[in-house]
C-alpha cells in the first residue's frame, strides 16, 4: 500500500475550483489551519464549504470567506465572522444555515450510506420550508438528506502511517464524521507515530478512511 504522508502542497493538488469541501472544526478549534493556508496559497476558488461555522475573520473557515474563495457555505452559525454576514447581505456569498445537530447527522448519513434521517429539530420553523415532513408514532419529523463532499480537510491530534487518527478534547467535533463523508480525505495532524503504537480501541477514525496525512502543528497563518 502506498505512503499516505505528504506535503500540504501535494495533498491539495486534488482540490479544484468549484468543489464541495468539508472542513472540520468548531469556531476554528479542530480546524486544519495549515490546509487552509494551503488553499489560500493554491488560489482555488468558487468553493462550497461545509463546516460547523465560518470561524473568525482571521481563524478557521473565516479566512477562506475573507479571501472570497467561497461560493456557498453550509454551516450552523456565522455570528462570529462579520465578513460572512456582509457577503451574505451583498449577495456575494450564499449562506445555508442548518441546525448543528442536523448538520452532524447529515454528514454522518452521507458517510454511512443512509438516504436521510428524520429529526424533530426545525419543525415549525423556517428550517422546515420545502422539506418533507414524515409522521412517526403521531409525531412530526423533518426528512433531512445526506451531505457528501469531494474533499474533506480534517484535523487530528495523532496519526499513524496508515492514517489511523486520534482526536483531542473538543477538537474532535465534526472531524471523524467528515472523514467518512468525502471522496478524498486529507488529515492535518500534530504528530505522526509508528503503526502499532496506537491502541486499536483508542483510534477514532480508521486509517482506511484517510487518503493523505499532512504534518501540521506549526504556527498557522503567520
Amino acid at each position, binding site marked *: 500500500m502506498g505512503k499516505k504522508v505528504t506535503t500540504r502542497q501535494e495533498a491539495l493538488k486534488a482540490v479544484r475550483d468549484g468543489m464541495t469541501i468539508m472542513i472540520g472544526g468548531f469556531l476554528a478549534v479542530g480546524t486544519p489551519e495549515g490546509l487552509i493556508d494551503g488553499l489560500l496559497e493554491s488560489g482555488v476558488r468558487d468553493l462550497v464549504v461545509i463546516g460547523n461555522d465560518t470561524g473568525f475573520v482571521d481563524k478557521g473557515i473565516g479566512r477562506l470567506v475573507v479571501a472570497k474563495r467561497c461560493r456557498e457555505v453550509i*454551516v450552523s452559525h456565522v455570528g462570529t465572522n462579520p465578513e460572512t*454576514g456582509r457577503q451574505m447581505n451583498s449577495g456575494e456569498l450564499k449562506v445555508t444555515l442548518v441546525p448543528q*445537530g442536523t448538520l452532524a447527522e447529515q454528514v454522518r448519513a452521507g458517510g454511512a450510506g443512509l438516504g436521510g434521517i428524520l429529526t424533530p429539530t426545525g419543525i415549525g420553523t423556517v*428550517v422546515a420550508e420545502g422539506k418533507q415532513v414524515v409522521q412517526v408514532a403521531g409525531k412530526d419529523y423533518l426528512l433531512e438528506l445526506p451531505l457528501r463532499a469531494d474533499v474533506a480537510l480534517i484535523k487530528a491530534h495523532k496519526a499513524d502511517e496508515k492514517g489511523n487518527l486520534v482526536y483531542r478534547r*473538543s*477538537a*474532535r467535533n465534526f*472531524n471523524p464524521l467528515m472523514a467518512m463523508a468525502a471522496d478524498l480525505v486529507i488529515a492535518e495532524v500534530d504528530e505522526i507515530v509508528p503503526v502499532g503504537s496506537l491502541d486499536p480501541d483508542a483510534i477514532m477514525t480508521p486509517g482506511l478512511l484517510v487518503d493523505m496525512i499532512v504534518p501540521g502543528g506549526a504556527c498557522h497563518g503567520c
Partner: protein
Amino acid sequence: MDAREQMRELIVRRVARELKDGDVVNLGIGLPTKVANHLPEGVEVIFQSENGFVGLGPAPEPGEEDPDVVNAGAQPVTILPGGACFCSATSFALIRGGHVDVTVLGALEVDQYGNLASWMIPGKLVPGMGGAMDLTVGAKRVIVAMEHTNKGRPKIVAECQLPLTAAREVDLIVTEMGVMEVRPDGLWLVEIAPGITVDEVRAATAAPFNVVDDLKVMQA
C-alpha cells in the same frame, strides 16, 4: 455591582435553583453561562458543552489554557475529572435524544405558547441557530433566562414575530421581574421579584398571563 448586574445576578441565581442533583445541563452563551457560578449547596450537576464533551468546568487559571478545551463560545474552559469527550453527532444525539435534562438559553422573544425566537432578526442580525434548535427540541426542560424587556420593549409577547427557534418547547421563563411557567392554558406568573407589582409585570409584558393564587416572592 451596578443595577443591571444585580438584575442579571438575580436571574441566574434563580435559574440555578431550578437545577437538581445529577441533572445534565446545557447552558447557552452569555447570561445563561453564569448560572454555573451559583449552584445551590449539595447540588452537583453535569454540564454538557455541545461542541463535544460533558464535565465542563470553570475557566482555567491564566496561562493554563488548553487550545483544545473550549466551550461552545470558544472561550477556554476545563474538563472536570469524570468528564468525557465525543464527536458532534454524539453530542447532538445526547441533546436530541433527551439525555440533557435542562437547557438554559437567552431569547429575543418568547410567547404565550412557549414559542421561542432567538437566532435571527431578518435583515439585521443573522448569526445562525448553532445548536439552539436541537437543544430547545431535545432537552427535557427548556428554561429561558433573559431580561424582561429590551430597551423597554417587552420580550414576552402574545405571538413571536421573529423566526422561531422552536415551537412550543419553552417550559419556564426567568427574568428580573419574576418567574413564569408555560402551561397548556398559557403563561402563569408563579413568582414575582421583590419590590415589583403584578401591574408592573403586566406593563412590561406584551402577552396575557395568569397569576397563581399563591404567588411567591422570587428568591435569588
